[in-house]
């Protein structure tokens, strides 16, 4: 009767799409990071901008190189999905703002090549690439990775100009001692190891951390801006509340108990929540799709694990900060969590057996 003329490639239903895309998701996360990033530029000047730009650039560069070596046909399309940019961006946020150029390049290499592409690229990695790079850098080069500068508006020194900043970034000009300082967590750890009571060691409360007026990583400082970005992601449904709340609760609950028992030995929950990478970790790292559990229950458990481990490392470990380590440890637990936290199938019990049919139906 009719000749079979296939005028279009056959596709299965559905024939409509909600419009979400990988690049839109990545763009929204970047948008959420923007306020804290811009504020970071203002706090730390040109060196921070150079660091941010080069970290992203090296991540994209290594991504392109890896894709080419792997023989991926759609290099441009994959680069445009924004995942490499986001990895670089998140990594830059966790670095000391005046870190030298090679930290950015090496960080980009570790994050993209070792952290992501060797596993098979986007969606295949077990560990959060930015955290892999952060931890590898910290363990390998503890000195430049713990060289914190005071926010420039607080510093006595004049803001370095463009050329001066470039020289600091390229390492030809040493970072002046006058601008360096310890982070709150680092200071607390040092003082504790010297046997000084925390009540005596910490003069000011952690309140200044809300607006980032304290030495710290480039993008981790202004807790309020990170929080705003996180809320934006919650409202646009890029993330759900389970993982962030888990992280915050996982830190706050043990911190509150311990601080209540021995305030001279343990930091207050407020100091924990507002310091270091915790806010960034809660809203931007623990919510990483690829390396966190799929179900909301799983994400809550994952978040609690990250929070608790962070508190344990901060309070008892050798390092003053533990978010990155905690995230990596929980990343390794993700497949296990996924295995045990499956949604219940409609019409079946948790074990997968069909539910009982009531006798008197």
């Amino acid at each position, binding site marked *: 009767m009719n000749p079979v003329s296939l005028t*279009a490639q056959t*596709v299965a*239903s559905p*024939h409509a799409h909600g419009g979400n895309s990988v690049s839109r998701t990545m763009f929204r996360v970047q948008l959420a990071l923007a306020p804290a990033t811009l504020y970071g530029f203002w706090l730390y000047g040109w060196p921070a901008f150079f660091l941010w730009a080069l970290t992203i650039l090296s991540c994209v560069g290594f991504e392109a190189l890896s894709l080419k070596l792997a023989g991926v046909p759609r290099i441009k399309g994959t680069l445009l999905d924004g995942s490499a940019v986001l990895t670089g961006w998140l990594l830059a946020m966790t670095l000391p703002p005046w870190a030298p150029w090679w930290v950015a390049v090496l960080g980009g290499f570790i994050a993209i090549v070792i952290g992501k592409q060797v596993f098979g690229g986007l969606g295949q990695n077990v560990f959060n690439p930015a955290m892999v790079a952060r931890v590898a850098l910290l363990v390998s080069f503890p000195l430049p990775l713990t060289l914190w500068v005071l926010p420039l508006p607080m510093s006595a020194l004049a803001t370095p100009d463009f050329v001066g900043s470039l020289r600091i970034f390229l390492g030809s000009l040493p970072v002046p001692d006058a601008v360096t300082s310890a982070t709150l967590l680092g200071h607390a750890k040092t003082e504790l190891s010297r046997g000084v009571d925390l009540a005596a060691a910490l003069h000011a409360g952690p309140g200044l951390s809300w607006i980032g007026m304290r030495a710290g990583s480039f993008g981790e400082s202004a807790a309020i801006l990170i929080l705003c970005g996180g809320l934006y992601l919650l409202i646009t449904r890029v993330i759900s*509340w389970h993982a962030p709340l888990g992280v915050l609760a996982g830190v706050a609950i043990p911190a509150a108990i311990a601080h209540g028992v021995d305030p001279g030995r343990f930091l207050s929950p407020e100091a924990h929540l507002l310091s270091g990478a915790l806010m960034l970790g809660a809203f931007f790292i623990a919510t990483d799709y690829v390396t966190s559990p799929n179900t909301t229950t799983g994400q809550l458990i994952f978040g609690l694990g990250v929070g608790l481990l962070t508190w344990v490392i901060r309070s008892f470990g050798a390092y003053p900060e533990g978010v990155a380590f905690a995230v990596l440890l929980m990343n390794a637990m993700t497949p296990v969590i996924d295995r045990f936290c499956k949604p219940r199938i*409609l019409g079946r019990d948790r074990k*997968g057996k069909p539910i009982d049919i009531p006798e008197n*139906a």
Partner: protein
Amino acid sequence: MGFMNLFKHFLGDDWGVHPDDRKRPAADRPLRVMPVPEKLYLPLQQHLGGPARPVVLVGQQVKKGELIAEAQGMISAPIHAPTSGTIVAVTDITAPHPSGLTLPAIILAADGRDEWIDCQGCADPFALDPVDIGKRVAAAGVVGLGGAAFPSAVKLTGAARSKVKTLVINGGECEPYLSCDDRQMRDRAAEIVDGIRIMLHATGAAEALVGIEDNKPEAIAAMQAAAAAVPEVQIRPVPARYPMGSEKQLVQVLTGKEVAAESRTFDIGIVVHNVGTALAVRAAIRDGRPLISRVLTINGNCTNDPGNIEVLVGTLAEEVIAFAGGLKGDGIGLARRVMGGPMMGMQIPHWRVPVVKGTSGILAFDAQEVAAQEPDPCIRCGSCVKACPMGLLPLEMSARIGNAAYDEAVGIGLKDCIACGCCAYVCPSKIPLVQYFVHAKGELAAQDRNKLRNEATKKLAQQRQERLDREARERAEAAAKRKAEREAAAAAKAAAEAAARQAAETEGESA
């Protein structure tokens, strides 16, 4: 996106998706009735179950409503002539299916007189025996008009046998773009309620719950007015959420009962029918008219004049579109042809395929609507897990199917998948998840068939060997028997001869 939905989202009670329904303006346009086309193409398989068997000869004159193909087997449905005319061929035509493969059909040339046969209606259906109603519905070829096209009589009699208590009427119409049920509920509410009452009588159920999504306020109002005096028929607005019209989901929302996996709604005392089916049942019982036409929605950005049209079964989609005002720019920019809804409908290869009993819509999409794109890698975002109304893990299933580990996919719930398409709808990487699942189900079915065939072959071979052995044994036994008989005969003969000789000798001696 209402406040309640946002609240439910935060609680995690958020199955399904909220697609842009795109039902208006088509839903608000008055129903149009398409005139009889020149030729009608009636596939023998328009329903779930066994195909019908033709009972007409080429060249035979038939009247409107005359049986032209009878049901075959337990689950099947007959087909009737949608108009009067001549049977011109029984041959293969392109199926309304993405494959573009053919299937056998009866082709009927209309004579233009549109002359009915004598219809045996019934003035008081409630005096009929429920079994009789089932028989009449079966004879009228009524199938579920929601899309699955399951023979309705099987469900009616099955429900009566299972002593169901509740009849759930599906007026959800959760598929975007489609509004044929909406239109009929607005225009024919009283007839639908009458049909529901007949169904209540046929199934023996005490009450009927009519679930209508709250994005159809006119339909809800019309149905409430029509059912005001009928206490056993309750109109229940339900939240607009896809796939609300899916059986298990609608039952759960309306009754709070959960249908167990691997079982049917009968088992919890419920049977589900579509509103359009209620109309068809009413026509079959009250007027004695078989199912020969249906209302469908023409929609999509490429259509000039979207709306609802009553069409004879067997009309080519091409002609329906032409009647409905054609396509914009004669089909320039047409990206996809779909029969059914956008979420679960089928892509068709061209417009020269007929409308069948289950066709709820003909959709002409442009590129922007279908948003076709090369899939990106899965980023494990879990959107599909949140969207799945069955509580499955689409991303895990597709990963396993990608590795051809079909049994593992079954282990995590592949067989519970209802192919609603929520997962693929929300997937940011635009992975064709439903295609994976349909493929895997097909592979598993093929494996099962192969297994059955292998077993059958093995059994046959075994039987043959047994037969050969038996025959050889029988032959050997027969030979042995013959030999024994021969020997016995020879012995007897020898004995007789000996006796004769002895007798002769004795005689000689005595002589």
